[in-house]
Every structure is written in C-alpha cells, then in structure tokens.
C-alpha cells in the first residue's frame, strides 16, 4: 500500500464539470471521490438511474478530465469505457474490453483473442498487474449498460466484479438502470443514484442554452421568456407525459418558434407571457410533439400552415430524436382509409372475416352465422368501450376479447365465415358481383403478402398457403377494421360477441 496522503481531486476539474452538467454536482463529486486514486478508489462502483440522467456522459467527461489533468508526480488515471449494448455476446464483450484497455494503455502486443472471463482476467492482469506501474496509477473500467448485455451467463456480472479483487489498481464501474439486489454477489458495493431531474432542474438545464435572440426583443427578454416558456412546457408536456431531458428539450425547441410567432408578428410583446401562452395553447396540446410518427411529419405541414417551412422541418428532424415505438398506430390511422380504397372488395371482406374469426370464439359461430331458424338471428354482441361494466364491478371484470389480441384460427373457418357473410355484406356494399374462388385465393395471397393476415404455427415457411387446415391470425387492429367495415357499410361491432 502506498502511504501517500489522502488527496481529493482538483477542485477546478469538478467545478468545471459541474458547470457543464448542471444539477449533478453531488454525483460528480461522489463519483470523483470514489474513482480518484488518492481519494477513495473503490473496487467496484455501480451507477444507476433511468435514461438520460447523465450517467454515461458524466462518467466519460469526468474520466477524461481526470486523465488530462496531470500534475507532476500526481496520480495517473486511465480508463476504458465499453458500451455493452454494442457487444452481442459475452465473448464480444471480453474482446472489446481487452481492445479498449490495450488502446488506453498503448499496449504493444495485443492478445489475439479472449474468449472467457478467466482469460480476460489473465490479459488484464498482464497489462495492469504484472507490469510495473507507478504507485498512484489507477485504471477505471466502465461497463456501460451492462445490465442489457445480451446472452449474459449468470456468472458474468459477479465475475466482472471480481476483476478488481485480483487487480488492485482497477476499479470497475457498472452503469445500469436499476440494479437488482446484490446482483454482483459481493458483500457490498457503493452505488450512486442518478435520479431524474426535477422541474427546477429541468428548467435550469434548459436555461443554459437559450435560443438566439428574437429580432423584436432584447437579449434579456428572450432569456427571461425562454425560462418561463420552459417551465410551461415542462408542466404541459414533460411532467405529464415525457419526463426525460431529450424529450423535453425537443418539445421546447419545437414549440419555441410557434410560441414566439406572435412576438415576431408584433401581436404580443415578450412580457405578455400569459397571452402568449393562450395563443400557443393549440400547439401545447399537440401530441405529435411527443410522438412524431413518420407520417405525422407530413400531416403536420398543413396543420401548421402558418409556420414557415423551416419550423416544420425542425419538427420533422426533431422527431428522430425521440424514440417512438408507437409508430404503428399512426401508420394504422394514416393508412386505414387507404386500405379501404386500395383493397378490392373480396380482400376487404376476407379481412373482415378473418378479424371475426380471430376475435369470436368458435362456439358463437352458430349463433352468428347460422341461417337455420328464421332467416337470421344472432348478434347479441356489440361490445362497447367502458359501457356495461358498472354492474359487475364488484366481481372480476371480464376483459373485452378484442383487447386480448387476435387469436389464431383455421383457414377453413375463415372461409366459412366469409361464405356466410359475403352475400349479405356484398349486397350492401357498393362494389359487387360474385367473387370467384380464384379471387379468394388471390385475395388471401395478397393479404398474406401484405402481412395483414399472418400464418402462425410450426412449419410456416414450407407450408402450402392454401392448406385449409393451416392456422392464421389477423394482423390489424380494431380501428382499422372498423374503418374497413364502414367502407362497405358494415358495423363490425355488431358481429362481435363477448
């Protein structure tokens, strides 16, 4: 053990960092203390927190700053940051670790391969342990997002946590979202939380970068307005639906031109905040700010026709910043009308039949489609959202079948339904004429190729698509089907039985 005195990292470095990353002062300090060679270098360290809270950015910046800050005979710190999301397998991870460390140390003879954790330990030992290093040398290995490592054997994390037991000058930093209890299987690890920002912090962070001054206002007014505006956006959008810094920032930059449009137009002054807010209320309620679909970007332009093209473009570009899983729905909404137009009647009828087959149970088929008794009976169905639940509240509620998603059905059954309803529905429909069997086959093939109908079950690849025993599932949602049904004058709801 070296007996050098205890020494905290240079205050200047920390202060600078704290300015770059506002509202993270305490985390930066704690992290620096726990990494700095002459302070309190831990063996393992866990940083956890939700996304976009600065875990990786701060760690990277801090390590870089500490590496660069070099006092003579001061401590040396080297680091390697491995993003485990980029690594597909454990072996991939090991090899990237080794290559990063080799790079950081400018090691001359990189090992050719590194397949196992034990080999990793050997290689790291060679580089860090067996090579003589100055007393104050310290190496920091950062494993970013290690909890999302794919194909991770159960012993991987505990093993990684033991690297530093063997190699004393090593600190392993694990960056995770939410550490499970004792996931490193070590007695205790220091864990630093990066909590999400609060409203004042959000606003403060945004205030560090103010937009360019508006032509009709002063610098000061712009800054002031921006701050208040950020607060309003936070309340309207971030707090309620998208509480991450990138989403918030995106919403602010996207809204700012629209918000300040009245100022540019001279309608309102920069001091009339509440008036501006009222004027921009429509924009604040626009969900596409948070959920900009691919299609939405186009539809936005007519909506914001008043805006300049530049703004719309900004919105479009900004859209890519926010990850947006919900795209499908938008596409659905956007294309539903198209579908009705694009598909021939037979295909539409088949799709509806498939939907009914997916969402009705077999035992109701007789009720629905039998013509046995008097002309037609049936359809007691009619499910409706949220209605009729009141009475049964005390007992367990039944979930609407349509919410449970599509069930698989046998092709034969769908064709039977199709045969049962086609006459009736076709009569109503505008486009008519008896469909030939060949039409049916082609329609099914079309729907399958469009993936509106999906073949399920084993042997999907090689099976004959026209095998009447094959299992299928409809792949469109309720909204689409309803639109489709209405296009041929059918209320699909009436044909669904709970």
């Amino acid at each position: 053990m070296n007996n050098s005195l205890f020494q905290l990292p240079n205050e200047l470095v920390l202060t600078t960092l704290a300015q770059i990353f506002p509202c993270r002062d305490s985390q930066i300090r704690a992290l620096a203390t726990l990494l700095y060679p002459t302070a309190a270098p831990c063996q393992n360290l866990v940083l956890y927190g939700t996304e976009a809270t600065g875990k990786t950015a701060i760690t990277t910046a801090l390590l870089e700053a500490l590496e660069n800050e070099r006092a003579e005979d001061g401590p040396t710190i080297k680091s390697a940051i491995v993003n485990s999301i980029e690594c597909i397998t454990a072996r991939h991870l090991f090899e990237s670790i080794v290559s990063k460390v080799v790079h950081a140390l400018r090691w001359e003879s990189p090992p050719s391969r590194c397949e196992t954790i034990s080999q990793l330990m050997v290689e790291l030992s060679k580089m860090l342990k067996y090579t003589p290093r100055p007393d104050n040398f310290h190496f920091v290995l950062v494993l970013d997002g290690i909890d999302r490592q794919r194909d991770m054997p159960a012993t991987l994390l505990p093993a990684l946590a033991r690297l530093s037991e063997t190699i004393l000058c090593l600190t392993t930093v694990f960056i995770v979202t939410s550490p499970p209890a004792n996931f490193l299987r070590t007695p205790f690890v220091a864990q630093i939380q990066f909590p999400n920002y609060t409203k004042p912090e959000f606003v403060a962070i945004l205030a560090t970068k103010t937009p360019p001054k508006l032509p009709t206002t002063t610098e000061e007014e712009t800054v002031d307005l921006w701050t208040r505006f950020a607060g309003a956006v936070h309340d309207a959008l971030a707090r309620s639906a998208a509480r991450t810094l990138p989403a918030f920032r995106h919403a602010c930059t996207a809204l700012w031109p629209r918000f300040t449009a009245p100022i540019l137009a001279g309608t309102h002054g920069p001091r009339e905040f509440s008036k501006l807010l009222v004027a921009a209320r429509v924009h604040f309620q626009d969900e596409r700010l948070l959920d900009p679909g691919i299609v939405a970007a186009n539809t936005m332009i007519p909506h914001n026709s008043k805006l300049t093209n530049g703004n719309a473009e900004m919105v479009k570009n900004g859209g890519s910043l926010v990850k947006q899983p919900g795209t499908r729905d938008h596409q659905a909404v956007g294309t539903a009308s198209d579908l009705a137009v694009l598909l021939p009647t037979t295909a539409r009828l088949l799709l509806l039949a498939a939907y009914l087959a997916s969402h009705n149970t077999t035992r109701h088929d007789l009720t629905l489609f039998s013509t046995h008794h008097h002309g037609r009976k049936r359809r007691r169905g009619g499910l409706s959202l949220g209605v009729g639940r009141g009475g049964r509240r005390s007992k367990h509620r039944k979930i609407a079948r349509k919410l449970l998603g599509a069930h698989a059905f046998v092709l034969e059954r769908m064709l039977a339904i199709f045969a049962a309803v086609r006459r009736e529905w076709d009569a109503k429909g505008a486009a008519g004429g008896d469909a030939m069997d060949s039409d049916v086959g082609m329609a099914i093939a079309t729907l399958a190729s469009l993936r509106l109908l999906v073949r399920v079950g084993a042997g999907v690849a090689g099976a004959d698509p026209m095998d009447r025993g094959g299992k299928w599932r409809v792949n469109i949602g309720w909204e689409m089907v309803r639109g489709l049904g209405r296009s041929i004058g059918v209320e699909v709801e009436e044909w669904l039985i709970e």
Partner: protein
Amino acid sequence: MSSLDGNTGSKKRARPRNEDDSPAPTSTKKQRLKVTDNNSASGSSPKVDDDLNPASPPPNGDVNSGRPARPARARRPTQKILEVKGSVDDGQANLGASAKTTQLPRSKLQLPPPPPRARKVPAATGNSSIYDVPDSGDELSTAAGTPVLLSPRKKGATPTLEAQANGADQPVKRKRGRPRKDQSALLNGTQSAAASPAPPTSSKPTSARRPAVPGKGGDQQESEEVPGTPSRKAAAGIRGGRKDLVEQVPNGILTPSKQRAGAGGRERKNVAFRSSMHDSGDNNEHAGEVSFPDLVPKTTKQQPPETSHNEGEGESDDSSEDDQVCAICSKPDTKRGNEIVFCDGCDMAVHQKCYNLPRILPEGDWFCRTCSGDDDSNNLAAGDQKEGGVVVALAEESYLDIPNFEQHLRAMQRVLVDRCTGRRRIKLRGQDEVYEKAFQLVEQTIKAGEGNSMLVIGARGCGKTTLVESVVSDVAKQHKDQFHVVRLNGFVHTDDRLALREIWRQLGKEMEVEDDLINKTNSYADTMASLLALLSHPTEIGAAGGVEQNDGVTSKSVIFVIDEFDLFATHARQTLLYNLFDIAQAKKAPIAVLGLTTRIDVVESLEKRVKSRFSHRYVYLGLPKSLPGYWNVCRQGLRVDDGDMRAEGIDQTVKGHGQFWKWWNEKIETLRKTPVFQDHLEYHFYNSKSVSAFLTTCILPLAALTAAAPTLKVPSYSSSVVPVDPPDSKLHLLESLSDLDLSMLIAAARLDIVAHTDTVNFAMAYDEYASLMSRQRLQSASAGMLALGGGVGRVWGRGVAGIAWERLVTLGLLVPAAPGGRLGSGGQPGGGLDAKMWKVDVALEEIPGAVKLNNVLGKWCREI
C-alpha cells in the same frame, strides 16, 4: 481614531480589547470545545453553542484575572455608562491603563453569568456591522438592535439609517462597536463629530431600539443615557416623543416577555431579571458602582434578542460578540469582504474567507453548511457538497492546537478510507478459534507436508476471504518461499478446464504449454501430480515438457484457495475437486485445499467419491452476534488502534501524533454515542450485519473531512448526501416516471386485481386508462373542477401512451410474460405492441408508497 471626546477614548479601549481579546477567545474556545466534547454528544449544534458561550467565559476569567477583574468588567459591561461617564467624568477612564484593564475585564466580565449577555451585546454590534454596509457599521447595529422589524443587515442598506446610526452610535458604539476596528474607526470619527450635534438624529436609532426593548432594557438604556451626556437624555426624550415612544409603551411590555419566552433556551431570563434589578440600581447609582454596569450589557443583550425575534435572524447576529472569533481560524479580526458571519441556525461564527463564502453575502438569513444541509441551501454557490448528515460533533476548534494537523488528518483518511473501500484488510474480530484452526491447517501443510482440505463456510461479507488471506500472509511471515498459493474463483473459472489452466498459469507456467495437457482429457490427475512434482524440483521447471512424476520429493506446498466452492461442485463430474481432494488425501503432494462458500449444505452437492476424499473439516464463520460486537468490527473503519499504527504505515514520530489520535478517537467515541449514529449502525446491524455495508457508507463522509471541517457526518437517510446504498427495489424508478407512465402502470396493475389476470397487454392497459380517465373527467366536470385542470386533466392518445408503455418495458417495470406466450407475436413487428402480454412487476399497493401521487392517481390506486 484621533477624533475627539470620550468617544474616542472608548474607541481606543475597544481596540486594545480586540488585540487582547484575540488570543483570549481562542483559549476560551478551546476550552469550550473540551467542555463541549462531553456535552456535544447531544449533537445539536445550536445547543452546544449556547452551552459554549456560557461555559467559555469562565475559563477566560480564570485565565485573565479572575475575581479582581470582575469589578472592572462590571464597569465594562456598563461600558455605555462608563464611557459616557468616562467622557464626562472619567475622561481619565484612562485610555491607556484603564483601557487595558477594562479590556481584559471585558472578557472576564463576560465570563460570569453576565458574560453571555455581554457577549451577545457586542455580538449584536459585531454582527450588524458585519452584515450591514460596512460604512454604516456600529450604528447600523444599533439600528438593528432596534425593535423595528428590519433585520440589521437590511437596515444597513438604507443610507438614512446609516446616517442616523452614525449620529446615534455614540452610545451604542461604546458599548458594542469596539471590536470592529475599521468600522469603528471610521464611525468613530463620524460619530464623535456627530455625537454632540447630532443627538436628535442619533436619537432615532436609539429610540428604535427602545421600543423593542423590554421595559427593563429600555430602562437601562435610559439609565445609561442619563449618566451619559445630557444630549443623550434629550435624544431619549426625543425618541420617546416620536412615534417610537408611543409604540414602545405597549409593545415594550408585551413583546419582550413573549420574545423572551419564544427565544427559548438561552439565559435571557436571568439577564432580564438582573437587568431589571440593575436597572433600578443604575438609575439611582449609575456611575459609582461597577457591579451595576454589568446590567447594562445585559440590557443590550436583551435588546438584540428582541430585535432578532422580529426577523428571526437577529439571534445569530446578536449572539456573536465583539470578541467572537472565527470558528476556523479563531481570529476576531474582520475586514470588508472578509467579515465574521454568523449562522442563523447554530450561531457558528466564521470568516467569509475561511468558510469560502462569496465576498458579498446575499441578503437574508445565512446558514452554515451544517444547518443548510437540512435547510435547503441557498449557498450551493459555496460549491461544496451539501452533506445533509447530522453534525455529530460540533465543529470544535480544539484540534487547532495539534501540530501538523492536516498531515495527520490526511494520513488518517488514507488509512481509514482504504479500509472502508476494502483496499486494506481489516482484522477479524471474535473469530480467534476459527483463525487458529485454519492457521494450523495451513501451517501443518507447509511444515509437515500433510495434505489437507477444509471448507470455510459463512455468509457473504463475514470475512471468509479476510480470514484466509490473513492466514496466508501470517504463514508467509514464517515460511516465506516455502509454499505457493493458487487462487480460484467459481465465478471466473467456470469449468474445470479453465480452472486447471489457471492453476497451471499461476504456478508459473505458460498457457501454451498447458494446451497440450488440456487435450488429454483424462489426464487431470496426471497433470496435477506432474505439476506438483515439478514444483518440487525448481530446476525442472525450465524443461516444461518434462512430465516426470517424482512422488514424495515435493519440497514446496501449494495452498489452493477456492472461492465460491459450491460452483465448482456444479462442474461436470467434479473432476477438479476429485483430483485435488485425492491428491490431498493420498499425500501425493503437500497441498491444502481451502474451499470458501456461502452454502452450508455444500457437502451434500459433492459426489460420493469426492465426498469420501474430503477431510470433512469445516470452519463456520458467523456474523457478529451483538451490536457491540458489530461495532467492534466496524470500528476499524473509523479509527486506528495504537497497535496498528506501524502496520498501517503511519509515522508515529511526527509531532502531534498522540494528540491527534487522542482527539480523533475521542471524537469517534462521542460520535458513537449520538442517536443518529446509533440508528445508522443499528440499521446495518439488523438489516444485514454486513460490515462492509457499514464501512461503505463511511467512505464519503471520511473523504469529505478537511482541516477546516474535520467533523465526521453520519449519512442519514433523509439527507441530501449522495447515498451509496443500493436501492431497495425497482420502486425507486417510479419517481422518474411521468404522469402518463404512472397512469399506464397503475392501469395495468389495476387489471391485475380488477380483471384477475396476471398478464396484460397494451390494449388492455390503455383501455383501462381511457375508461379511468373518462370517469375522472366526468366526476371532475360534475364537480366543476375541470376548469381548474386538475392533475391528470389530459387524456393522451394511443401513440403517446404507447411510448409510455415501452418506457415501462425498458425500465423493467413490465416483464414479458412467458416467452412467446399464448399470443406471443414472436417475430411479427406489427402485432407487437397491442397484443404482447406482460406482467407488471409492481403491485398496485406498492405504488403510492414509492412515489408521491397526485390526487387522481392516488384515487386510482385506492379505489378498485
């Protein structure tokens, strides 16, 4: 300075005081510290301060002159009187000699019961001067002293007040102003000049005070004034004539009593009584008796508290005295931009520079870091970590005596922090028997060439590795170079092939050589034996290929330390274990196999043939059984025993070594007795009994120690310190969710109960969310609340809700139900969001506890 009258005289006095005082205060403080040390256990800084104040004076008194001094002091306190008189009668008051005496007495005077008051009085002035615009100085303080609600600082700002103050100060100054050289000097000039002509103006400030001052105070002042120059009286009269007087009468009676009561703990009551008594005395016999003068200071004191009541800040100001010294450098001097600042929470006094405060203090209350930690600090600017921990031992200045203090402190930090981070081993406590057993086994292996095997069983963090490592290092002291150690870890060496390769490597072989051997899958035993045989003949190592078996020729023993032993039992056929145990038992070579494991039933998992070769020696390591035992182990992270100094590389020859460690150990013991610390300790004891868990929490507090603030803070759970504890569960994630995320989560969790399903998909959750929202809107609309736009007023569309849903998935709050379950839309991107089934990883009833919900969401959680 050179100005005129008695005023100047008084000023002069003041200065000498300062000089004299500067040393005195330190001594007092030190003493205080000692005294406090014992008392400080209580932990509340303010209390301590209070205690200190009273306590400190006595020492001074003793030191300085004891009894005789008192009378002189008595005058002092009355200083106002004295001074005034001095100017009139005592012009002699003797700037020189008398001044000295008086000065000394001052401190002395303060010492006795009166001292607190006396201090307070001067403190008030001092404070005011500090905070106020420097120019305004003393007078400001007086102004501050006035009952008027304004705080001294604020008042200071206004020029008019200053002007008044200048005029008025004369009386006041004498009493208080001394300490501040600069200000007093400046002021003196102005004051002195202003004094005679200015009475009316001066009267304003004084009058202001009076109203606030209780009857006693007012009386005293008046009495003082009476003795003083007639002008003052006149001024007083004027004051009375003005609004102040009118107010005073009613206020004065009522307010003072309340204030005093409200002020709480301090000794104001005594002061008050005395003052009242004195007042009468003063009125009658002001000049003649020294003893009475004491009363004066009291009155002044009283005044400040009253004023303080008004704003609540006053106290701190008041409590500091002229001779109040900085808690860090213990010097009383002040300059513009580096004045002594008093914490409004605990009355701690520090220099701006010593405490790293900005030159210009913000208006309003100022709190030291200790107080502000709890308080929500305004002084983030100060740039240091807000350590919200509770100050366990009050910042005490006694450490300032210790030579090389900083060096000692940092050497200590080095050792303790290393221990806490696990870079230095701490000793096992209460495991002597176990240690003995393990030691013997290893020693026998080395000395007698026996083959041995043993299992060390114990919970995580109970010291298994520590035990083995200390055994190994102790054995190494006697038998250096007579054995090798091979360390394996079940997590790292996940199969026997790797383990063998590692053994080979650790025994000094190159990996390529060993590759050949690996290929002979059946030759584990041979390999082992050959390895061990090779060890016996160092000369043969060069000829790596030579696999000759020279049984019995072994000269070097090998200690195998197998961590996570239970994992080796999961390897196919347990080949490695079999061979190791076999070698150990058959005495093919002197090896000792030490298996470390947390599983108490590990032997059951051994195959029969392996088990039969195992010696069935066990050692169980237990966790500390009692709190004292636990502390006994944990203590090593906070202090270094005398015996270990050398081992830890602490230079004991450095001057001040003994002093420092005595001081530190005392501090830790004191700390240990505080309830906060005990809570902390008990928390870890009853939660996990994990020593390292406790030590880890000590790292940051230890690292935060500096020579300026060498007080260890306990991380308390409510504080704003970055805790290093792991989160209890996923629930901490809820805090960072948006309202919509939470709504979706609650909706999904509700379905669990409402619809009795254990899995949900997005469609179901969104449907539930939409219906809840529509019901909510209906209700709020009927209640007319819609206009107010209550918390969740907005129904978000599917798209945004889908984003929220995916966020929940990313955060792990939703976990996929059985992979590819019934509806598992395996690879189809289209069917994914709506239909894929998830399990909610949070129960509905957990949600309200984990995050603060708004009314609507809270209701959703409560009402099914």
